């Protein structure tokens, strides 16, 4: 079965097409990691077209869609999730969501990505690659996160330890989605991992309009 994999949880958008065999083996046929910053909505569908063309496939050949659910900056994150949901809906395909951090690096590690506001999104994994802590969001200083770190190297100084550069990959997304892809009918609904509440506080008292 061919799988379309998408992620927009970090400033690098990812689109990939992979062949997944019945035994779970994964062969990536095409992949684009585009440093698109805040331009995910502009560049994601063109990247999907590109990977489909490179894989010699059309959406009609795709059997399932996998998307990262974050955590990640909200506006960009939603682009990947709604794109995956819409493509799956339009083509009648199953869609599977995974924690985006699960798709970064492998083995025993702590994944850190940029959560803005001087914080990191993080999750820790054991030697079998299973997530044992997180995902969560924290200020890196004094958080005493376990190493070794992979993810966004910009945080090395503030973590006080090296961070091996690594990003979300098609292989990582399919690995994280394996269980759900084996039984797509049982896949969980797509719920974004925001980890933070919307920034909004109700006004405690309304100021008279004339003084505003």
């Amino acid at each position, binding site marked *: 079965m061919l799988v379309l994999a998408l992620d927009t949880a970090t400033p690098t958008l990812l689109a990939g097409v992979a062949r997944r065999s019945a035994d779970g083996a994964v062969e990536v046929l095409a992949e684009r990691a585009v440093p698109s910053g805040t*331009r*995910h*909505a*502009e*560049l*994601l*569908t*063109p990247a*999907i*077209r590109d990977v489909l063309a490179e894989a010699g496939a059309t*959406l009609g050949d795709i059997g399932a869609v996998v998307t990262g659910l974050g955590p990640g900056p*909200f*506006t960009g994150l*939603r*682009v990947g*999730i*709604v*794109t*995956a*949901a*819409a*493509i799956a*809906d*339009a*083509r009648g395909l199953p869609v599977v969501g995974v924690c985006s951090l699960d798709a970064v690096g492998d083995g025993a590690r702590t994944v850190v990505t940029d959560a803005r506001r001087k914080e990191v999104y993080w999750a820790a994994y054991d030697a079998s690659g299973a997530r044992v802590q997180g995902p969560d969001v924290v200020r890196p200083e004094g958080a005493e996160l376990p190493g070794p770190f992979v993810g966004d190297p910009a945080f090395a100084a503030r973590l006080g330890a090296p961070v091996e550069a690594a990003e979300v990959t098609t292989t990582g997304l399919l690995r994280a989605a394996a269980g759900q892809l084996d039984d797509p009918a049982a896949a969980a609904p797509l719920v*974004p991992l*925001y980890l933070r509440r*919307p*920034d*909004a*506080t*109700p*006004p405690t008292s*309304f100021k*008279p*309009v*004339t003084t505003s």
Partner: protein
Amino acid sequence: MTEPLVLGFETSCDETGVGLVRGRTLLSDALATSMAEHERFGGVVPEIASRAHLEAMVPTVHRALAEAGVQASDVDAVAVTAGPGLTGALLVGLAAAKAYALALDVPLYGVNHLAAHVAVDELQHGALEEPSMALLVSGGHSSLLLVPDLSRDVVSLGRTVDDAAGEAFDKVARVLGMPFPGGPPIDRAAREGDGSAIAFPRGLTGPRDAPYDFSFSGLKTAVARWVEARERAGEPVPVADVAASFQEAVADVLTAKAVRACRDHGVDHLVLGGGVAANSRLRALAEERCAAAGIVLRVPSPRLCTDNGAMVAALGSRLVAAGVAPSAPDLGADSSLPIDVVRP
């Protein structure tokens, strides 16, 4: 041959709208709103609106398809609001629309939200006379537009220099202790009041003022001062008269400037659009003044005046019929998309 079926997406503010239009026939207009979640904040919170759009998107598409009795695979083109509006909110609809267009292998038309507010009238009253004048009054905009060709050429004659008309309704409602959004409760309260009871100021109506620009901030402040003075004096506030007199001031300025613009430009058709066009006094006064000036007035029903997906599909349908090229694959959202860009 049947006309093309167009699927329209609108997420510029707090309404998730998905509509289906064939030619100029409205097939469905599905809407989800996060309004109730914003009420306690006294205004729309962008992040709350964006989260709600994501949750509502696929179910709202399903409702639109079911209401219209069509399948997604019947869709011939997709249209989406690309701006103006709240960036985070716009991007949910934009990404969804791009994905549906890709997956259904049909062209994608990004459209201007304001032009869509004008286009929606074609679903009710047939092809727009061109040129027409359009008065667009909503929570975020107050604009007078000269429309030589709604598919390609929209000219802004004037706009608000401060608050939008709907914003003024919302703020005055707050002063009067009414819920958000304030347009409907003021409209209701005003029915029991006297519009000539209090002479509130008419902004930018002096001989040297820009003839087609609007200003509602001074009016809002004048209403607040008037109410606060009453309260300080321990006197009851005649809510119905305040509401009616405020509403009269807004309707007076809007209609006077719209009629003048028609006359100055030799245009004899006026279209109202946007949420404030649902206001009963604005509709009545526009009717009266247009009739006196020999102008044909067109106003969509209140349901189609506020944000919805059908208005976007209506403009998309018009662009398809006019042979306008679809948007580029790297189409993005533009929170301050200029009004003269009909199809970004």
